[in-house]
């Protein structure tokens, strides 16, 4: 059981984890993960595994349990039942070791808003064990690439929502995590920055980082993700590549991910007409 003392992360995302028999360890391994809030079961005994280097899209309607699942995996919420591990480290028994592998862009940004962008990224790099000189170099590059250089020394409280998102992303990758959790990372971000972020994520993926990506922008998910998991009302309802899901959903070869998604969650589109607009 973790006692809060120092842990040292395994090195480099480009070396896949292996157990004592040399078998590949899943980057994320979830068994029976459950969370209840009062009477409501937000996540109901879900099982899935994400292999190292995968770019997984995690989709679901509002209130489906996406953010709760991510929050359990990154330590912000305690699961009621079930187990999960990140790169072989159990999120409860070896919680700090599991967190050494991850970077997180949460949906609610929760930044230290009275720090400047530069200070915040440096701070996160430091608590993940990046050396001072390396932090300085990486922070400078991240600010530059993400278009935050001119505002690097302004307090985050004075940033726009999009700037705060980019700052959160920079802080999530400054230590080159093995697993990156992104919860709505493109919300409020302009098209130019979105392109830059795509390239950054591509770079991380080529290095072997596993990306766990949740977004309502299905076009982006379809473009980036090698695999998609769909959750609805706390249960996994679909898991596979977009083509596999398309075939299973029988929505047709030309159907979009949105069509597949709506089919998977069993959503009936309400008639979007208002009588007083007719």
């Amino acid at each position, binding site marked *: 059981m973790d*006692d809060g003392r120092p842990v040292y992360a395994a090195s480099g995302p480009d070396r896949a984890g292996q157990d004592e028999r040399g078998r590949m360890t899943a980057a994320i391994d979830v068994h029976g993960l459950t969370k209840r809030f009062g009477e409501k079961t937000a996540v109901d005994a879900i099982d899935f595994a994400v292999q190292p280097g995968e770019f997984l899209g995690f989709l679901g309607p509002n209130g489906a349990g996406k953010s709760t699942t991510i929050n359990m995996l990154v330590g912000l919420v305690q699961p009621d039942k079930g187990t999960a591990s990140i790169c072989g480290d159990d999120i409860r028994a070896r919680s700090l070791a599991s967190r050494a592998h991850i970077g*997180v862009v949460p949906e609610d940004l929760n930044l230290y*808003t009275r720090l400047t962008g530069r200070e915040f990224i440096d701070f996160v790099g430091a*608590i993940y064990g990046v050396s001072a000189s390396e932090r*300085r170099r990486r922070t400078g590059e991240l600010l530059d690439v993400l278009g935050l250089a001119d505002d690097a020394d302004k307090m985050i*409280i004075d940033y726009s929502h999009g700037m705060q998102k980019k700052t959160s992303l920079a802080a999530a990758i400054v230590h080159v995590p093995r697993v990156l959790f992104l919860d709505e990372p493109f919300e409020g971000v302009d098209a130019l920055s979105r392109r830059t972020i795509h390239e950054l994520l591509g770079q991380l993926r080529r290095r072997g980082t596993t990306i766990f990506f949740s977004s309502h922008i299905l076009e982006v998910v379809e473009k980036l993700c090698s695999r998609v998991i769909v959750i609805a009302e706390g249960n996994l309802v679909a898991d596979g590549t977009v083509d596999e899901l398309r075939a299973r959903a029988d929505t047709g070869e030309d159907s979009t991910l949105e069509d597949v998604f709506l089919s998977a969650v069993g959503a009936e589109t309400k008639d979007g007409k208002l009588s007083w607009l007719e």
Partner: protein
Amino acid sequence: MVGMAVVGGAVTILVATGTYWAFTRTPAPWPDTTLTLVFVALWLAWIVGSLGFGAFNEALDVSRLLTYPLRREALVITLIGGSIFDIATLLVVPVVGVVLMVWGHGAQKLFVMLALAVLWAHVVLAGQIVAGIFSGLFHNRRFRDLVMAMVAIVGLGGYAAYVAGGSWQQHAIEVLTARAEVIHHVANHVLCWTPPGASARSVILATSGSSGSALAWLAYATVLLVLAGRLWLALLDRLCAGGGSLFRIADAPGERNAGKPARVEPGGALVAMVRKELRLSVRTPVLQVRLLQGIVMSVVLAFITLRKQSMDPSMALMVPMGMMLLLTMIAQQNGFGYEGASMSTWITSPLPRANVFHAWMLSHLVIAVPYVVVLAVVLAYLSGHPVAALGGAVLAIAIDVLLCLVMFFASLVLPFPGPQGRRSIQPKSAHTGAVLIIGLVVPLASPLVSAPAWAPVFLVNWKWGEVAAAATTLWSVVFAVIVYVVVVRALGSSLVGREARIFSVVRHSHAEQ
């Protein structure tokens, strides 16, 4: 809102009681002067309050309504109607009741009511005019920070007055008596020309039987009311037409980076945490206020205590300890509450959890040690017992460490949202228990927990004097260090299993933005 009503209500009743006493028990012309001063104070309070609370009270921010195609009439009715049922308006009722009770007899009461209605209209209009002129400021982050700091300073003034107690009141009476002539002249010949002063004058004259003069003053007040009303309507027209607020200050652009090389911020995780704590302490208004409150309150309390006690070696040993107790209880309360939702940054990291407490301790000592050193120098000078003062300083640091541990433990087991993480001024009822326990139990438990550190020192002082006592404070330091190492290790272990629950309690925050 409940808290505001309780606190504001208590203050208003006190003011009303004091006003009644001034109206009925003081010699002439104090009742007349008091009436004028109360009316003017009410008017000024509304102006200042609208400026200050407009930053936090959406109801005062007219700009929120301007996106809707409201006609001017609808806007006027909305804003005036909102004022009628505002808590601040209701809090004025006791004072108004006292005025009605004391001033005017028989039919004159009707005149007094009319004058009060004109006064109320002036007060509301003044607030609306100020809110309209300065609404551009309400969205300015620096302005909001300044308001928070000013509210805290005013609160400190109230505390200082309360602590000073009878001696302050006596002093105040002496000053008022000495300056009586000036005060009466200003109130009855200068302030009477202000809108609220004119209403007061009409009430005074009506009560004394000079109906004609009373009517003239009321007419004057009414003319001013019409002018104020026209100004307000012109302001509303300007706002509705997209003219914007008259006062707007853009947030400063901040330091531009343009090619300047970034400096290296040395150190690992612990140093980064300490650096973060110190930066937030300096930049976050609620934390600045908390620290300022701790320092000022402890200094005021020490000042009051020392005025009443002779400065012997025991006092030089004890005073720093007492001051640190107060400073730390205020400045270190609810550590996780003040972290708020931002603590998710390190929860999701492999940061050794003991570093959270180490950082709190070290950043606190960065402020506490210089504070105690200055204190020791002052006490050494005042007491003529430098060795005892030095011992007192060392003992204070040792006790401070132990007290911080108590506060850390309290925050770990009984977290509640900090002020920046609450949507109202008061904590929710679910957290009231935590607040009460921390407010009552911690001050009682702290002397007991730290007794092994301070008791030997005072015992030795009693038996062998200040030099031996000062030497014994080294034991206090050793004891504090041992306890610190053991306890922080345990707190760090415990935090891993509790942090998700703590986060869920303290996380509801967007008040900073």
